[in-house]
């Protein structure tokens, strides 16, 4: 016969409250705010020059590929959707998050490569950094976004590798998403201002 026992159970909750926001996410948010101000400055300068021009785009300059870039914009937005799906899967089962994450990376890479292809064709047609104000602003604004997209792809790729090895921390994944959503969200604004 097992001896009965009376035990007093005491549960003491952790006195430390959980952090408001993971440090990687907060740092990325502050960086994103700074980059938004930089792009706001560029777009302001562009709109002032465009307002003062007699005609826009300037005569004699090649026309921008509006339709092709609209398709490319849809590709970039789709990459954000896949990243969102990956995040949802990550919270349930990390193995399910790999495929949508790599789809997001693939779509983002397609966007960057297609932009590069468009640049090459525009340069061949005569729109260069020094050909006109139009060319200067186009390559500056779209180029800055392209650099951010490349950096975002590198960060996404690193997250994908870590996820494959089972080492991706939730805070790291969240910070990666913040930056990529910024890159994707900014592009339609730039597209409407520069291309349309």
């Amino acid at each position: 016969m097992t001896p009965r026992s009376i035990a007093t159970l005491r549960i003491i909750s952790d006195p430390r409250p959980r952090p408001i926001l993971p440090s990687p996410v907060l740092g990325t948010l502050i960086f994103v705010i700074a980059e938004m101000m930089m792009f706001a400055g560029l777009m302001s300068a562009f709109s002032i020059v465009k307002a003062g021009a007699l005609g826009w785009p300037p005569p004699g300059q090649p026309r921008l590929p509006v339709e092709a870039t609209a398709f490319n914009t849809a590709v970039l937005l789709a990459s954000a959707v896949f990243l969102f799906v990956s995040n949802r899967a990550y919270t349930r089962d990390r193995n399910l998050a790999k495929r949508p994450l790599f789809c997001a990376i693939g779509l983002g890479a397609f966007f960057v490569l297609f932009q590069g292809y468009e640049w090459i064709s525009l340069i061949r047609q005569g729109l260069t950094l020094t050909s006109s104000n139009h060319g200067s602003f186009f390559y500056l604004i779209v180029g800055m976004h392209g650099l951010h997209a490349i950096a975002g792809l590198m960060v996404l790729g690193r997250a994908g590798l870590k996820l494959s090895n089972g080492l991706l921390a939730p805070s790291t994944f969240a910070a990666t998403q913040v930056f990529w959503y910024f890159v994707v969200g900014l592009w339609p604004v730039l597209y409407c201002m520069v291309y349309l």
Partner: protein
Amino acid sequence: MVSMAVLLAPRIASACAVCFSGRSDETRVAFLVTTALLTALPLLLIGTLVWWLCRRARQIRDEHDSASPVVDGVFRGPRPSGQPSANRRAPGIVVLRGE
């Protein structure tokens, strides 16, 4: 001829955005709109972030305060063998005192 050249030179250069191209209405409106945008945007972004952080801090504080800091209970049953296994889901420390 020299005086004519001197008089016409500023018109030909038209370099200053305020003195020359800034005179058109569209450019003036663009200056005003972009100045307003660049003034309001950082306040909006940082203000939104601070507001959201304060709101989240309040939510976490409320969750933490509503959780009972100490739960006392009496367990009656056979003496558990070995080390007591802590409930992995519940935060904090589980203390068992057997008698």
